[in-house]
């Protein structure tokens, strides 16, 4: 099953994918498009990706997680396209026999995604500007449609 979607992320589907009688703890992470006081009126973020590499990188990343937490069951879905503020861009569910494994595996996946999975985002702001987000610094403003 693809790790990419252009639809809303379904928490129920993620949970169903990891549910197991032996798992007593499930940790879920949702990353949502933020428009807080530190943002500059973000109405949406346009997510794009190197899609073929995203799929292979997710497969490697989940294999790595499986080596570290053999009893954990993990599902991840990243959304692409234009995502409105408040909606989720990524959902990760990790179920495990005990909660520490579930938390650690879930945290591992999101941290690795931020490092390894080739996805990019462009903020759409109320003033009409569009800004590529560079997590290594603050996004650099740029006139619209350049």
């Amino acid at each position, binding site marked *: 099953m693809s790790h990419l979607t252009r639809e809303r992320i379904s928490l129920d589907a993620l949970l169903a994918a990891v549910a197991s009688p032996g798992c007593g703890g499930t940790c879920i992470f949702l990353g949502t498009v933020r428009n807080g006081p530190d943002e500059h009126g973000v109405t949406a973020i346009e*997510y794009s990706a*190197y899609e073929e590499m995203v799929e292979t990188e997710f497969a490697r990343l989940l294999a790595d997680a499986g080596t570290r937490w053999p009893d954990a069951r993990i599902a991840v879905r990243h959304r692409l396209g234009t995502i409105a503020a408040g909606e989720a*861009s*990524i959902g990760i569910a990790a179920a495990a026999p005990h909660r520490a494994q579930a938390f650690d595996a879930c945290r591992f996946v999101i941290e690795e*995604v*931020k490092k390894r999975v080739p996805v990019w*985002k462009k903020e759409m702001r109320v003033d009409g500007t569009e800004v*590529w987000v*560079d*997590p290594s610094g603050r996004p650099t403003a740029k006139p619209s449609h350049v």
Partner: protein
Amino acid sequence: MASTTAATVRVRFFARYAELVGRSEAAVSVPLPATVRDVLHRLRDDVPGARALPEQPLAAVNLKQVRLDTSVQDGDEVALLPPIAGG
């Protein structure tokens, strides 16, 4: 350079790099042996917009992140990746 063999690689640009270069891919031929860095140099000569790319971008060969001194073969897909911002 007196090379008898050449490699043609497909170079792909994403996100801001695609905007900078003004296209999303290019075919580049380099004499072998060659590294990703050689591909980048040739790209800057062949594709004017490519001069706007940073000197040392993140790169992937065949869907795997690599260093710029990694060698390339004929038919490889080289991707130039802006700073990753997923999640």
